[in-house]
């Protein structure tokens, strides 16, 4: 909302109060000033100067040496190059010391040997327009020396107010002035609305309201009117607050709206057939052409203003093309009405029309002032015509109907709201407040005290303050008028009893720090997918990770779906980094995957490993977990490791990132939370389709899948412009499942070994598809195990000297006792048995 300070001064005396003070006061009472804009880009050192002499420059053909009267005893000598600089005209003179737009400073100068004390400016030089047709020639005869900003009406300052949606009353200058008066303790000068020459009548106009969505409809007939140019002051005011000046009729309409915050619509009286207004709801599918020449398809519930034959206006939003003010309009009928805010808003939102009128109607205009607004229009119009005629115009006297037609079916009840003074004092921690002070505050806002008994004060809320509905709203008025700075600082005195916190909250933060400590950088991305991302990730129809939640109004077409996994965002991040020449990024992200398992329940049979995916998360209150139709949000932590793991350097060749580095990273991170009983199992074909089928795995803990890891599928690398031979590695873990696993920790081994171990190594030839875990768990089950304590694989070899289909695996076994140092005999005996056990179990050959 733009407010002109000059305009504001019509309603409040602001003498001696600076723009800065006005602006600070408005911000202080809740009408935040977002910007302060002076009308002119120059100050009062650009003055009217009359050229009293102009001769050709002795040394330059195109220059003139002028003598200019700027209201001082001596005229100034100014050298000017403009062809129109001639005796008798009034020019805009920038005196020495003036700063003009573009940081151009006027100094005393010698131009081709002739002294020059100032500059006569063109419109462009003053920042007024782009054209450069010589210097400005001022029309009117102002006294030389008068600041040009005054002459051109540019001595105004415009404030941009952030008017919050509750303060509909402050979408007009009077409303803002009223609040300012209340704070500054000044009287409000209301605009007058007396029509001096009542002649003619509106009696022949008929208004029928056939919907309860129109609360009032006032019509006023005005004849003998011409859509001429507005007087300068009106044009300036309308333009100062950012509107275009069109013609006298439209400008007065806007002027009164910007003054009293009540939209007005003027119809050409010839277009109101039968001089009959019918306000009704539109029929479903009815088509209407608004004055911006757009065909609007309406729905039932939209409000239409019709004449005897057809619709002529879309109520509260925009007039019709068929009844607008035209060049030859000579008579008009004014509409000042009240329409239901919700209907206006619903219609304007649906049709995408946001007009000055709809903006006000949907916030709520004053139902009671419609008649006054119509008369105010008439008065301003009449005054303008008088003024134009006094300045030499020859307009006919407008014939303004002395009466108006006012259909006001249901007068609103007075709104009486009670205030408990003690409550207000306590709530605002302002014990000094008295009921007298409170009464004065409300009176200054024109809110009447209608009853007072002991602690209780009852106020009659004026019709323009639709935001005041309850006692707390009255308390806010007291708070903002006395100033929030008057309230002391206190801390609440409360019971120490804490509200229980879900352990997930803290876990998420530790998870983040632990992951970063393992060398990954945290990134955050937007959780949106395009239509193609699921395909690029090779997710087949019916896969649980296929996105199921679609945005109705995405910000861009390629951000339509809520993602289910963070994988895609991380792949895109690596893609972007590669584009910028950054290789070897190690990134992780924590965020949610979003699923709608209400519409499409999780297919547990086909995707048994995803069976925990449809649990409602711990971020929800217990109550919300029970709600029907709530989507599922899973908390993921996911990471991507781009190639290479280590760049070539002075002490190392390039090390490629491998599945096992990522596995180590994941296991180490899990171990940080005490999750040590973890299995990494080969993924069955295409269960996580964006991973390489031969280099990917599930992470199992406590019998359930808690995540997956592996190399990116080569087709997916291609889909995201990555090099398949340098595929990055990914992992993704369900944080809640990890937390669950970590809270069920295994018993900690408490004995400490005090005697040294003995070790024996064994190399075996086994089938290539025998996995490490299969061997390790067989070793764990070695029936004659007595001293065998630890075992680890230290070599896996295929190739020369190894038969096809076989591999050589070498194990190191450590034997240890809690009671004694083992003898060679102790160890040899058990190792022999173990060797026999393993060779039989795996049909292995000892190497």
């Amino acid at each position: 909302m733009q407010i002109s300070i000059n305009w504001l001064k019509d309603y409040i005396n602001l003498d001696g109060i600076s723009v800065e003070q006005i602006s600070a006061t408005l911000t202080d009472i809740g009408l935040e000033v977002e910007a302060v804009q002076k009308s002119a880009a120059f100050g009062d050192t650009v003055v009217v100067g009359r050229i009293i002499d102009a001769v050709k420059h002795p040394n330059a053909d195109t220059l003139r040496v002028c003598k200019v009267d700027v209201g001082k005893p001596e005229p100034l000598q100014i050298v000017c190059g403009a062809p129109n600089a001639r005796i008798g005209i009034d020019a805009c003179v920038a005196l020495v010391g003036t700063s003009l737009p573009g940081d151009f400073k006027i100094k005393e100068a010698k131009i081709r040997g002739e002294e020059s004390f100032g500059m006569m400016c063109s419109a462009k030089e003053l920042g007024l327009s782009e054209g450069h047709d010589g210097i400005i020639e001022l029309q009117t005869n102002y006294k030389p020396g008068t600041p040009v900003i005054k002459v051109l009406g540019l001595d105004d300052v415009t404030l941009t107010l952030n008017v919050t949606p509750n303060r509909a009353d402050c979408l007009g200058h009077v409303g803002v002035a009223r609040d300012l008066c209340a704070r500054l303790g000044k009287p409000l000068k209301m605009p007058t609305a007396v029509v001096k020459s009542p002649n003619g009548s509106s009696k022949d106009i008929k208004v029928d309201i056939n919907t309860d969505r129109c609360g009032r409809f006032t019509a006023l007939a005005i004849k003998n009117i011409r859509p001429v140019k507005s007087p300068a002051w009106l044009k300036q005011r309308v333009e100062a607050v950012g509107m275009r000046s069109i013609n006298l009729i439209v400008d007065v309409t806007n002027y009164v709206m910007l003054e009293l915050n009540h939209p007005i619509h003027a119809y050409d009286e010839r277009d109101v057939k039968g001089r009959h207004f019918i306000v009704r709801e539109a029929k479903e599918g009815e088509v209407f052409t608004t004055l911006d020449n757009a065909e609007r398809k309406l729905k039932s519930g939209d409000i239409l203003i019709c004449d005897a034959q057809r619709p002529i206006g879309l109520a509260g939003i925009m007039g019709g093309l068929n009844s607008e003010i035209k060049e030859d309009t000579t008579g008009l009928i004014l509409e000042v009405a009240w329409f239901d805010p919700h209907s206006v808003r619903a219609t304007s939102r649906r049709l995408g029309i946001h007009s000055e009128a709809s903006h006000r109607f949907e916030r709520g205009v004053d139902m009671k002032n419609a008649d006054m607004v119509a008369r105010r229009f008439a008065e301003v119009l009449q005054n303008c015509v008088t003024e134009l005629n006094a300045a030499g115009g020859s307009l006919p006297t407008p014939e303004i109907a002395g009466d108006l037609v006012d259909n006001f079916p249901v007068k609103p009840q007075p709104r009486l709201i009670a205030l408990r003074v003690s409550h207000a004092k306590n709530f605002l921690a302002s014990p000094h407040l008295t009921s007298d002070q409170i009464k004065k505050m409300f009176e200054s806002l024109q809110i009447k005290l209608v009853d007072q008994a002991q602690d209780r004060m009852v106020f009659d809320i004026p019709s323009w303050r639709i935001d005041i509905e309850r006692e707390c709203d009255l308390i806010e008025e007291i708070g903002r008028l006395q100033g929030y700075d008057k309230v002391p600082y206190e801390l609440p005195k409360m019971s120490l009893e804490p509200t229980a916190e879900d352990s997930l909250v803290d876990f998420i933060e530790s998870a983040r720090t632990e992951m970063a400590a393992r060398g990954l950088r945290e990134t955050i991305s937007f959780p949106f997918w395009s239509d193609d991302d699921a395909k690029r990730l090779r997710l087949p129809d019916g896969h649980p990770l296929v996105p199921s939640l679609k945005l109705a109004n995405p910000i861009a077409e390629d951000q339509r779906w809520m993602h289910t996994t963070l994988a895609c965002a991380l792949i895109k991040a690596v893609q972007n980094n590669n584009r910028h020449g950054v290789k070897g990024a190690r990134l992780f992200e924590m965020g949610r995957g979003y699923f709608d398992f209400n519409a499409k329940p999780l297919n547990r049979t086909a995707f048994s490993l995803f069976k925990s995916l449809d649990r409602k998360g711990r971020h929800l209150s217990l109550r919300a977990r029970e709600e029907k139709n709530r989507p599922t949000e899973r908390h993921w932590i996911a990471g991507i490791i781009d190639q290479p793991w280590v760049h070539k350097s002075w002490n190392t060749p390039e090390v490629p990132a491998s599945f096992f580095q990522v596995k180590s990273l994941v296991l180490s991170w899990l171990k940080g939370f005490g999750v040590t009983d973890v299995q990494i199992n080969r993924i069955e074909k295409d269960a996580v389709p964006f991973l390489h089928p031969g280099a990917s795995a599930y992470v199992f803990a406590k019998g359930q899948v808690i995540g997956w890891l592996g190399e990116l599928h080569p087709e997916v690398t291609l889909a995201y412009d990555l090099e398949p031979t340098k595929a990055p590695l990914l992992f993704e873990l369900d944080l809640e499942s990890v937390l669950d696993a970590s809270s069920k920790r295994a018993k900690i081994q408490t004995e400490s070994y005090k005697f040294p171990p003995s070790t024996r190594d064994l190399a075996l030839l086994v089938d290539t598809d025998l996995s490490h875990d299969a061997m390790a768990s067989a070793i764990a089950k070695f029936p004659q195990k007595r001293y065998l304590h630890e075992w680890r694989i230290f070599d896996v070899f295929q190739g020369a000297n190894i038969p096809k289909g076989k591999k050589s695996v070498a194990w190191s076994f450590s034997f240890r006792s809690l009671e004694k140092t083992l003898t060679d005999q102790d160890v040899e005996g058990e190792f022999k048995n173990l060797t026999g056990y393993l060779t039989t179990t795996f049909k292995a050959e000892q190497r």
Partner: protein
Amino acid sequence: MSLLEKSEIVKKEFEGDRAKAVAEAKPEAVESLRLAYLGRKGKVTALMEDLRNVSKEDRPAAGKAVNAIRQAIEGSIDELKSQARSWELTAILNREPLDVTLPVGEGQQMGSIHPVSLMRQQLIKVFRSLGFTVVDGPEIDFDFFNFSALNIPDHHPARDMQDTFYVDTPEKMLLRTQTSNIQIHTMLNERPPLRIIAPGRVFRCDSDMTHTPMFHQIEGFVVDENITFAHLKGTVDTFLKAIFGSTLKTRLRPSFFPFVEPGAEFDVECGVCKGKGCRTCKDTGWIEIGGCGMIHPNVFEAVGYDSSRYSGFAFGFGIDRIAMNRFALPDLRQLFEGDYEFLGHFPLHSN
């Protein structure tokens, strides 16, 4: 040659070999010296074996002499061994000094935490110290929690304050536009007294230089009997000082959020110019941080709290902008571009 003569030769040879080993000054030389004389095929061992061939009568004298030599050599070698330890240390110490400025590979690199996360962790720390409990909640929610229970009915112009993403579901769900939905979730699930903060992601259908469709907020609220506007002021002032520094001024100015009344925006004095006015604060001397107010009785009534018994305040603000301010970041969108090098500038811990 008699054994005694042989012994004398061995003794002389040892002196020579010993001198060589000392000159070499290596532990290995001492060990080979030991083997050469005391080892299984060593010269002293050979002398000892020769003793068997000496006649009975000569044996005591010869044995004495050989033993003496053996002891002398053993002693000498022991001495050399301990000397060898110090030769070893000297060798270690005399290694070529390292070029300690050589770069280290990224094998052991440290990762980093996103600036927004760092900021959130710091905020959580501050609020926990004030006795607040951290609560999480859904990012996709029903209209009720995000709007209507917060006193923002359908078709209320206040909905224009936030451009909402709607989800294509039968029951009109949305991406929450504010963390305030947690007020409703918590109050429906718990009884006062409450001191809650709820950090989280929020979404608005808006994208330009200064807006991203997703950003981070933190919501806080306190509900109990006799909570006043002064408590709101005191709490806001306390946490702002804890975050921005205790020397900066704070202020509340009237504003409007449908779920609070009275409502306010809270500002902190500009840290760059200390309130004098500069480019950072657009010459106002203040940095806008967030919104707050006394919880509207309509909100209490929507969750079934007795609004005549309980009062409370709520506040909320964006984390991203504070993080940008804290780390002096020029471009909001940079936060969400996943630029590996940019992200590498941040530490692991906030303080």
